[in-house]
Each structure stands twice: as structure tokens, then as C-alpha cells.
């Protein structure tokens, strides 16, 4: 790793953040390029993050020195690759609060993790009349599988509404989470509003009423210190690519007792103990859920991303984001016609900043910003039901990560000012 924050501190002031950044940006080769004649300002981190050199190098090194299929090989490379793959699993287990590595399943994406739970646990456990509770701010990944499961099983899909400020509205929670609730599936941090949900409190309530709890950590794990045991969730899903790792690696944490009772999701190689034509026994955890050759290289390189984040410290990642978020919201609030969605209290939100312009469509905003080298996202952010609740067809979203700095926010704000002049508003 080329640079790292030297001292672990919880209160980083603006000045030290900026210094921190100059070093950090240099670790990300992609950030040094120009787009449309302007230095790249990358503010689409809730979609995916960029990769530091250490991760890119880990991928190259894997293919140069270690590539082999894992788990069954009886040769040197196969043993090395297997060790590296399993080392990442152990690293992930430590990273999310110290769970048993057998409880960490590698998937293709957060979405696939949700589908694994829906098809394996859901098929076996949800019955007619059961209730599945979600929230109005779910990403389609934590929504579509439950809508389909509920339809198939004739179960009832209930939702926790949101308040005008973009928090979960818990005023009627006792009528939403009931003894009939079999599953509570909710996001830890909204990819649209940035809201950090009180997942531990809700998990406690749901479990008292006998429900299983699944957390969507796709936006939370990259940005906050997360301890899944402290959250009290039974399942928790996230992906590597939103936290500096390669694409194509998802994680599903599941409580051992639940995973052991669940049937496999995919069938084939790797996931069996013994196969006869008439009788098959499943492999133990976690291999039961990892049929076929997994995404070995990307899992191996994910280890470098975890190390990189640990060396910065997740407390620092969070603190930096709070500081930059405060600056961004202050600066965006100066602008006429810009409305920021979601909570305004920094302590209760992360760095995904959805905004709209009263006059200009989000797609025009995004196209204009791109002409200035600024990458944001515009659209429904895979949360169409939430868009309807917000009364918006789409929003523009700038989302932050460790390498962003005040200069990035300044570039965004200046470009938005120029945009209004350009469109004649």
C-alpha cells in the first residue's frame, strides 16, 4: 500500500482530511485521468468504487503466479490458490465483527446473496399467510426477490413507510412487525437517501416476535464499521466492488444454525460430499452454497481491499465521510433550485446525496456534469417504489468515498451553477 493514514483518530478536521486525500487519490490510477478535457471527479461511489493499485496488483499477481482451480487440486498452485481464497473468507469474517468463517458465503453480488436466501431459506420456510416485512427505501435487490416469494407462497408483503425527512416511520411498527412476521428484510443504509437505519433495534424487535432478519449492507459495510453480531441480524449481504474490491464478488453472512438447515441454492461441483446416481449428500458450510468454480481471482484480490480499508480504519472512513457530507450539503444548499433528499442530520446518514433541480431533469444534470468530467448517477437508482413515495421520477445522486475531497464538491457545485446558466434558468 502506497500510503495510509498514520494515526487513528476519530475526529478528523477538514484540514487533515484534505491532506489525507491527496495521498489517497494517488493510490487510485483511474482518478488521474481527464474526461472531456477536465480532471475526473468521481462521485458515483454508491454504484461502484474505484480500485487502489494494491487491488489491481493483487489481481495481476494472482493470474501471474497463482492461478489454479481451488479445493480439489493436489498440486502446489492449487494449494496456494485455495489458501488465498480461504484467507479472504477469514478476513471478511473478521471485518464484519468476528464471525465464524463458515458463516461467510461468497456469491456473485449482493443481489445473488438475497436470491440465495429467498430461494433456499424462503422456499423452505415461508408459508401461506406468513408476513414478510420490508421498507419503502429498499433497493430492488432486497425487494424483487421478496415480492416474488410472497406471490408464490401467498404470503403477505408488508412495508415500513418513510417519513418526509427520509427516516423509517416506526410509529406503527407494532402493527407491521407482528408474531406472523417470518422475515424482516431491510437496508442498513439507503442507496438513495443515505439514511442509516436503526437495524439493531428493529432486529431485536423482529426476533422477539419470532422473525428472521436480513440486512442489506451493500452501502453500509463500505462506509461504516459493521459488526453483524452486534446488529443481531441472521443474514447480511454486501459486495466487494462497492468497497474498493473487484466486481463479481458478493458476500452472504448467515447464522450457522440457519445455513446448516438450508438446502443448497445451486447444484453441481464443489457443493457435494458424495454423489451416487440415487443419493447425494451435501458438503459442509460454506461449500454447500458455492457450487461450481467460484470467482477465485476477484475473491483473492478482495483481500487487498479489506487490508487497505483496515489500514485507514473504518472509523476514519466514516469520520471523513461525515466531514465531507457536511461540506457538500452546506455547499449544495447555497444553490437555487437544488433540493436534497433524505435526512439532513449527518450522524444518521451516509454519503449518498440524492438531489433534484426544480427545473432540470436528472438525466440532463448528469449529461451536463459529465461534460465537465464529473461522474454522478441519475435515475431511479434501482428503487422505483421509493421514487414513487418521494414523488420523483428520478433523482441525481452524488455519492462519496475515501478519495473524494472538498475540491470535488467545489467542482460539482460550480458545474451545477454553470448548468443553470446553460439551460437558461
Amino acid at each position, binding site marked *: 500500500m502506497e500510503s495510509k493514514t498514520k494515526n487513528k483518530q476519530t475526529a478528523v478536521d477538514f484540514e487533515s482530511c484534505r491532506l489525507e486525500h491527496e495521498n489517497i487519490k494517488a493510490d487510485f490510477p483511474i482518478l488521474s485521468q481527464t474526461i*472531456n478535457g477536465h480532471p475526473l471527479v468521481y462521485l458515483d461511489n454508491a454504484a461502484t468504487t474505484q480500485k487502489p493499485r494494491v487491488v489491481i496488483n493483487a489481481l495481476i499477481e494472482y493470474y501471474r503466479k497463482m492461478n489454479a482451480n481451488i479445493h480439489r487440486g493436489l498440486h502446489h498452485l492449487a494449494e496456494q490458490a485455495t489458501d488465498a481464497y480461504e484467507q479472504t473468507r477469514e478476513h471478511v469474517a473478521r471485518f464484519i465483527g468476528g464471525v465464524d468463517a463458515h458463516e461467510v458465503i461468497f456469491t456473485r453480488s449482493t443481489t445473488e446473496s438475497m436470491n440465495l436466501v429467498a430461494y433456499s431459506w424462503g422456499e423452505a420456510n415461508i408459508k401461506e399467510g406468513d408476513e414478510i416485512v420490508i421498507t419503502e427505501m429498499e433497493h430492488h435487490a432486497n425487494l424483487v426477490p421478496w415480492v416474488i416469494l410472497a406471490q408464490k407462497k401467498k404470503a403477505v408483503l408488508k412495508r415500513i413507510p418513510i417519513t418526509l425527512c427520509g427516516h423509517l416511520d416506526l410509529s406503527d411498527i407494532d402493527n407491521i412487525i407482528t408474531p406472523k412476521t417470518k422475515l424482516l428484510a431491510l437496508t442498513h443504509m439507503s442507496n438513495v437517501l443515505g439514511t442509516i437505519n436503526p437495524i439493531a433495534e428493529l432486529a431485536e424487535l423482529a426476533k422477539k416476535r419470532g422473525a428472521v432478519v436480513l440486512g442489506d449492507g451493500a452501502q453500509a459495510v463500505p462506509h461504516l464499521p459493521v459488526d453483524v453480531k452486534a446488529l443481531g441480524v441472521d443474514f447480511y449481504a454486501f459486495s466487494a466492488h462497492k468497497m474498493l474490491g473487484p466486481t463479481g464478488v458478493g458476500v452472504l453472512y448467515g447464522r450457522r444454525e440457519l445455513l446448516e438447515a438450508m438446502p443448497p441454492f445451486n447444484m453441481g461441483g464443489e457443493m457435494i460430499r458424495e454423489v451416487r446416481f440415487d443419493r447425494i449428500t451435501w458438503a459442509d458450510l460454506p461449500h454447500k452454497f458455492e457450487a461450481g468454480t467460484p470467482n477465485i481471482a476477484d475473491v483473492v484480490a478482495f483481500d487487498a481491499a479489506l487490508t487497505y480499508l483496515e489500514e485507514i480504519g473504518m472509523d476514519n472512513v466514516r469520520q471523513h465521510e461525515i466531514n465531507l457530507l457536511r461540506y457538500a450539503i452546506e455547499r449544495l444548499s447555497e444553490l437555487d433550485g437544488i433540493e436534497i433528499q433524505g435526512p439532513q442530520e449527518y450522524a444518521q446518514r451516509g454519503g449518498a446525496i440524492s438531489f433534484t433541480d426544480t427545473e432540470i431533469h436528472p438525466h440532463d444534470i448528469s449529461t451536463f456534469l459529465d*461534460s465537465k468530467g464529473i461522474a454522478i448517477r441519475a435515475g431511479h437508482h434501482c428503487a422505483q417504489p421509493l421514487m414513487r413515495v418521494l414523488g420523483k*421520477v428520478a433523482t441525481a445522486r452524488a455519492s462519496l468515498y475515501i478519495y473524494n475531497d472538498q475540491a470535488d464538491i467545489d467542482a460539482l457545485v460550480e458545474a451545477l451553477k454553470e448548468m443553470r446558466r446553460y439551460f437558461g434558468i
Partner: protein
Amino acid sequence: MSEPLDDMYRDIILDHYRSPRGRKPLEKADVTSDGSNPSCGDEIFLQVELDNGTVKDIHVDCRGCAISVASASMLAEVIKGKSIEHAKKIAEVVRKMLKGEGTDISDDLGDLDALQGVRNFPVRIKCALLAWVTFMEGLKNHEKGHGDVHTRVSTEDDE
């Protein structure tokens, strides 16, 4: 400002976007058609009054990005007063121009020529297409004898 951006947001496009034509709803409509691109959030509602084989009047209400609004406004301006056959021909020429299926344009497209710049932004082509496809689908249904049935059109599936 980068050139492709100015090429897409030409003055004519921005003028149609700021003051869209055909906003007044019709009292009597022979053709009614809805279009929407859910992934963008663009939505269009279109009414046409026909008289003896010509488009007597047209109303277009489009909510969306500058490109979809301007394209819909241009449609309203160009199509009004044209024979149905001519209107269809124009719609087909615009569709082909946007999809890059040949630029042999013999018609005088007038303002519509300004839509050419959209082709440099592939993800926005569907925005420019929405009004035209919605118009054509409405006419098609009318010819089948159910012009009063709302058709739901999207240009997102054929990207």
C-alpha cells in the same frame, strides 16, 4: 463547453424545452396514446384530432428530460396540419435518423434536424424517440379501429 454537448443541446432544442408547443389539451381527440420510459421517468400523453385524412390538431404533454420534451414539442409543431400519410413518413424518417438506419433525408426536416446531435449520446436516443413511437402506436391503434384505447408505449426495450 464541449462540442458534443452543444451539439445535443442545440439552441432549437433548448427553445422547445423551455416553451414546448402543443400543450393545450384537445376537447375532441380521435387518437390518444401514452408513452413512458420507466427507467428515465419520462412520460408522455398525446392526443390527435383528425379531419379528413389530416392531423387537424395535436396535444402533447411530456414530462421528462430536455431531449424528450423538446422532441415531443417538435413533433407537435411539425405534424400539425400534415396529412396522416405525410406525418407517418416524417415519423419514420426521424426514427431512422435517431437509430442511425440511414440519413437519406429528402424531406425538409426543419427544426427536426436538430435532433441529430442526440445520436452522439446513445443512452438518450430513447428519450428523443419516445414521442414519435407513441404517436405511431396511437395511429396504428386508430387504424385498427380502437383509437380510443390507451396504448402504453416505451422505447426502453428496443435499445
